[in-house]
């Protein structure tokens, strides 16, 4: 059953690659690369040691921004969910921040942190922290009151209630929020790298175009972003099921 599902997914990808190949061949374009040229581009990058360098650079920034977002967002969200009044006070502010794309913060983050890693990390942090806060807040607010009452009835201290009831109760919803946030973080890193830094997959894409229209490398960068994003999401899904 599992292998059949996997096979179906793989054949979908294969069909898409075939279509891509066919389209490029029929159009006889010289600018847009076909799948084999892109693969050759990836190999070229790997040979020059750039593949690992760019991927590591992007992952490094995502890790920092995301970890910061988790470390800040979870406690803040849990507190907001617990103290309704704090939530009422802070919520309008959060709702105003939410529709502002993290990318809109690029100029300000450059102003604050200069051109470099820290600006990119800050932007990723901003993108990831809001979904985490929102999901943690909602998760705490959704803890059934019967569970809290049962915990009090069995004589648990506030700390025990937090560890033994609230935390396990919010965990599933929290992990969903963390998965969404990781997706956002990965989405944002590429954009941030197009402007603020000189390494990473986002930089690779802009640089490959600027340095002589290497569209094979542009698409190679895109494919790598997609594949790594898929892997990150799959990892989080596995965590969700555990």
């Amino acid at each position, binding site marked *: 059953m599992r292998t059949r599902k996997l096979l179906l997914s793989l054949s979908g990808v294969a069909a898409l690659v075939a279509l891509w190949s066919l389209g490029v061949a029929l159009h006889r374009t010289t600018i847009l690369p076909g799948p084999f040229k892109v693969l050759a581009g990836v190999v070229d990058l790997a040979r020059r040691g750039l593949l690992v360098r760019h991927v590591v650079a992007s992952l490094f920034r995502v890790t920092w921004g995301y970890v910061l977002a988790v470390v800040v967002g979870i406690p803040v969200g849990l507190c907001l969910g617990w103290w309704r009044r704090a939530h009422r006070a802070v919520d309008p502010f959060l709702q105003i921040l939410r529709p502002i794309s993290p990318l809109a913060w690029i100029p300000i983050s450059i102003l604050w942190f200069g051109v470099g890693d820290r600006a990119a990390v800050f932007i990723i942090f901003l993108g990831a922290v809001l979904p985490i806060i929102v999901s943690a807040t909602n998760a705490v607010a959704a803890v*059934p009151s*019967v*569970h809290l*009452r*049962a915990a*009090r*009835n*069995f*004589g648990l201290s506030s700390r*025990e209630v937090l560890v*033994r*009831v609230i935390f*396990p*109760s919010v*965990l599933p919803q929290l992990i969903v929020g963390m998965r969404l946030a990781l997706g956002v973080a990965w989405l944002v890193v590429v954009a941030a790298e197009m402007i603020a830094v000189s390494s990473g997959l986002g930089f690779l894409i802009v640089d490959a175009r600027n340095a002589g229209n290497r569209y094979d490398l542009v698409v190679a960068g895109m494919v790598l972003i997609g594949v790594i994003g898929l892997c990150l999401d799959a990892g989080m899904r596995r965590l969700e099921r555990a």
Partner: protein
Amino acid sequence: MVAAAAPTAAPVKIGLRGVQMRYGAVEVLRDVSLDVREGELVCLLGPSGCGKSTLLNIVGGFLEPSGGEVRIDGEPVRGPDPRRIFVFQERGVFPWLTVEGNIAFGLSKLAAAERAQIVAHYVELVGLEGFERAFPDELSGGMKQRVEVARALAVKPDVLYLDEPFGALDSITRLQMRSELLRILQAEKKTILFVTHDIDESVQLADRVVVMSTRPATVRRIVEIDLAHPRDLSSRRYLELRDSILEEIGLAHKI
């Protein structure tokens, strides 16, 4: 068993004196007084929304009354207490814990070996052998209710508060659970306050039925159920008692 364990000689366990509750202008409880003796099973019977759950929450220490007081063993109630456990409808079980984990919830201060022994005992008592490692999602409503009861009994409370515990179950399971509850309580005698809106349930289970009025709830009448367990649900006395309660509530016996 002997006739209806009406332990008139037993000391008063729970004493309510002039308990009142109002939310703003809404009066929910008016001057409720009642003595529950040790080992007694008392049903609070009343129409939905009459305030009987509010009363149980006051006795359980989850709500403070606007007036009057509740004493247990002569001590005023100041909050929930592990010696007196509240049993909710089956949604009170913790979905992230297994059957064993749920039953062990109140036993965290014990050594692992002792805890395991107690859990095994109550798994057997409520008839959940083979489901120790199952999560609540994998259980039926009746089984979840058994987990709740076992979780409550495991901490060896003297008092159980049951708030329409079988209300969410289908009628067949409900009937089974009632006789199961009586069987379990024969093994472990507890003082029990049981809230229900089901007249048959109250007459099947209780030593005494406290018939409550609509809001503001007051005690209308207390009916002694002088029937031995197991109770014959078609005996004359059973029907008599049931009909007298029906009458008290003001319902006709015919539909």
